[in-house]
């Protein structure tokens, strides 16, 4: 079908216009601003400071902590979500009655806006009346009277728990889609050859579903690195749960009118961007290798 290419440029134009103005331009501006010191407070002058903001990142105790918290959160939640997601996918892949209902139920955590489910969980983790608090007490994870969302350490685990709750079913559905593409005959042939279920899993299922898992893993990791909603709502970043995005927003917005922090905040934004990009590139590269 020979169609003149020029029409295409017309059709692409609105999209490119919007993303240029609202995505690319702000990104470049953030990079640019990171070399300055300025704020929105009247009387504060905009000064060029070169790499000063970046040098300050390491001197900033709060930034280093946010980085540590973010990495911890990412590694732990993504690992748990992937493993649990795979298990759940394998279970739901089996044929059983009411499978449709379970599969539908698995969409519920994803359908509930994070802001809302975070409040629901905050209620369930309420230090006096929360049902999860009671449960953790019964199991023995905590001593009675411990405010889960008020303790450094515990609070982060509660947040990880909430994230795992929301994302595991979603991961499971994605992996399930990958499982369902695997043709039955391969399994049949393997059974005939005498392979048991464990062998079938490791030799057939796992290799064939790995690309799907890998893609899901990329997106989950990138999402986890920029986590904001659940942390902000459950603890506002207090008791050592502050992640990079939460701290970044604090520096930009809460200090916008009290000092000259906008440039420094932009530097943090650039750091986060680079971090995400590096991970994205690593993953995409390794994905390409696998597919080849």
């Amino acid at each position: 079908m020979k169609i003149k290419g020029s029409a295409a440029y017309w059709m692409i134009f609105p999209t490119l216009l919007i993303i240029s103005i609202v995505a690319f331009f702000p990104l470049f501006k953030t990079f640019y601003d990171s070399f300055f010191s300025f704020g929105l407070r009247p009387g504060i002058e905009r000064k060029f400071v070169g790499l000063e903001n970046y040098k300050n990142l390491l001197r900033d105790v709060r930034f280093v902590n946010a980085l540590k918290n973010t990495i911890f959160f990412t590694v732990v939640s993504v690992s748990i979500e992937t493993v649990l997601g795979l298990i759940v996918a394998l279970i739901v892949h089996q044929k059983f009655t009411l499978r449709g209902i379970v599969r539908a139920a698995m969409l519920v955590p994803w359908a509930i806006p994070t802001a809302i489910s975070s409040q629901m969980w905050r209620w369930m983790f309420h230090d006096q009346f929360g049902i999860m608090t009671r449960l953790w007490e019964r199991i023995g994870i905590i001593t009675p009277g411990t405010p889960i969302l008020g303790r450094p350490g515990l609070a982060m685990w509660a947040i990880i728990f909430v994230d795992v709750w929301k994302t595991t079913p979603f991961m499971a559905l994605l992996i399930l889609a990958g499982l369902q593409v695997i043709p039955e005959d391969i399994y049949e042939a393997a059974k005939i050859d005498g392979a048991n279920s464990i062998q079938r899993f490791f030799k057939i299922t796992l290799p064939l579903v790995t690309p799907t898992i890998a893609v899901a893993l990329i997106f989950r990791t990138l999402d986890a690195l920029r986590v904001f909603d659940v942390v902000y709502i459950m603890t506002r970043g207090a008791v050592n749960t502050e992640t990079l995005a939460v701290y970044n927003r604090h520096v930009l917005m809460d200090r916008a009118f009290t000092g000259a922090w906008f440039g420094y905040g932009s530097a943090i934004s650039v750091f986060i961007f680079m971090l995400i990009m590096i991970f994205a590139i690593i993953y995409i590269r390794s994905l390409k290798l696998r597919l080849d």
Partner: protein
Amino acid sequence: MKKLATLLLVLTAIAVGFSVKITMTSGGVGKELEVLREQLKMFKQLYPDIEVEVIPMPDSATERHDLYVTYFAAGEKDPDVLMLDVIWSAEFAPFLEDLTDDYDYFELKEFLPGTIMSVTVNGRIVAIPWFTDAGLLYYRKDLLEKYGYKNPPRTWDELVEMAKKISQAEGIIGFVWQGARYEGLVCDFLEYLWSFGGEVIDEKGKVVIDSSQAVQALQFMVDLIYKHKITPEGVVTYMEEDARRVFQKGEAVFMRNWPYAWALLNSDDSPVKGKVGVAPLPLGPGGRRAATLGGWNLGINKFSSKEEKEAAKKLIKFLTSYEQQLYKAIHSGQNPTRKAVYNDPKLKEAAPFMVELLSVFVNALPRPRTANYSELSDVIQKYVHAALTRQMTAEQAIKNIARELNFLLK
């Protein structure tokens, strides 16, 4: 008829042209709002061409603060007159009308020195003190008498000695204060810090909290709990009301709290009614005593029009005048910022307790005046609380505070 109509029209036009409408923010709770409305009626009689509309504010100071930030960020022209917490002066200074040249107009030399300090930012006056508050020492005068103490403790060491003796003999707590991780903890901490001769930042804005006096002050607080054992470990969850409840039940010898507690402690169903005395907080080793200043000021929006600002000045002068401060003290129990009012016989009659507070207020100091005070407070809260719960030593805590404040206040 036509002439009359025209005359009326012209007069109305003149009246409308000359009348000004200004808006003012105020707390929306009970007595405070009621008293304000009465005062505004009196104001209207003095200045019939100025109309004042009250905008009730959320109860919580944090919410008011955030609302103000939204207004100023957008350059809103309303409200014209703003009720400002004593700790917000530095933060909102660029958005408030400079009133330095009106020092005499507002008769500021009549005001308590601490309150004037709280509205002075970089040498400029940005608001006028409206009513004030300060931390003070409550004590059981009946118990002190019982054990032979004629006067309340003059120094912290005396307080420790009295508290130990009486609390052990009576089987009650020695001393309660506010040790939870919130703004109130900073108020308490600063009182120890200042009385031990320490300071957070100096006049030039340099961080000077890294001092031996600061460590001693914090250590003293820690010792109250773990060494002298006159303060319960639970104090690290106490805010104002928690401490008051303990003291009101008769379960403590001493309490540090704000003046508001007095009325409650002497209500008819209070077990300690009539048994309570008040005194300024004790002297530290440096021979200095200090109380943390609380209270509210009135500022004028920089974005308002010239006429609105003029009207606003008149309103503020009225509300902070001697008569109005006396009225407010008598009717809503809020402490005047003018020294002379404390000697007024009508005040002595209606609220004798308040008269005794003058000695407290004269020594009251404002918290550090920086634009990002709330972050500064948060840093202090974090580490002081950590020291009080023994997650770190007093020395480590002070060092950490200094390091983070140095970064924050670059």
